[in-house]
């Protein structure tokens, strides 16, 4: 049993590489529910840390970053991912 979300890895993927992502192996399962960077060029997926997706293992898709939950939270607060608050 995994502790959620601490036991998950987060991958930052180029939107141009979406075709190589097998969404049955990651969350979200629906490509229509992805979180994108503000400029739309990147998105976030996640997986259990001991179940790396095969499309990453074999190099079909090479993430820009693979992050822990804590490190991904920090990235999401950056100007590239979060609008300034009114």
């Amino acid at each position: 049993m995994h502790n959620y979300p601490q036991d998950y890895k987060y991958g930052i993927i180029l939107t141009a590489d979406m075709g190589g992502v097998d969404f049955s192996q990651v969350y979200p399962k629906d490509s229509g529910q992805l979180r994108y960077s503000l400029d739309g060029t990147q998105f976030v997926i996640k997986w259990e840390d001991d179940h790396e997706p095969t499309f990453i293992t074999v190099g079909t898709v090479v993430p820009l970053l693979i992050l822990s939950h804590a490190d991904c939270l920090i990235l999401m607060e950056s100007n590239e991912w979060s609008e300034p608050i009114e």
Partner: protein
Amino acid sequence: MNGVGYGITPFMGTHGILARSSGGGGVPFVNEYSLTFDGISDYLNLDSKTQNFNDFSLSFWLVWGGGNYKTIVGSSVAEGGILWGIVQAGGTIRYYDNTSGWTILSSSISDGNWHHILITYDSTANTIKGYTDGSLSVTKTSVDPVYTTNEHSFDQIGARLSTGFYNEKLDEITVWDSVIDIADVWDGSGIPIDLTSTNPVHWWRMGDGDGDPTWSTNLTDHGSGGINATSTMPPEARVTDVP
């Protein structure tokens, strides 16, 4: 809608959770699960937008997760009035007001414990009230909502627009199309009560009744509105830490 009259019955559910009878010999009310949000990409998308409420009440339980402008309920587009974004910011619950900005609706909830929030909006008086753990915290008159198209409505839990992702636990999110009394949702015990007899329009129980032993990752609306929700989350996001 006062005087629901719940009696505590020493019934132990399958997870050892104290249940309480809803009276009349019905099935005991049990709250075994809540949902934990990762603050990155977890949210729930309602199958359709809620109705546009005139008066409304919104009740929920939450654990504060730090950060700011983390959304409890919100809209995927810039509309919905008050319900465009009900957020946690600065250790309090807030809504966005055109005149006063992010306006506080609660007392401090930043201690890491479960807290109950009730927000009521009276359209005739144009007044919003916020209650924290059974006590009135804020009364705000002359409400001036932002994004007034389709006010007051929402279509997401845990995010607004594509930002403000909630980052801790939420439970028992319930909506009525009227101003309810705090006694309808808070009996002083500090735990959720059976809301069936209050006839909510929406009641997402955050995992209870949504699959055992594995969460379906979707939510059933136990209110009369019947708007179910689809999540972006894994089954492990449903946890047994409950208020």
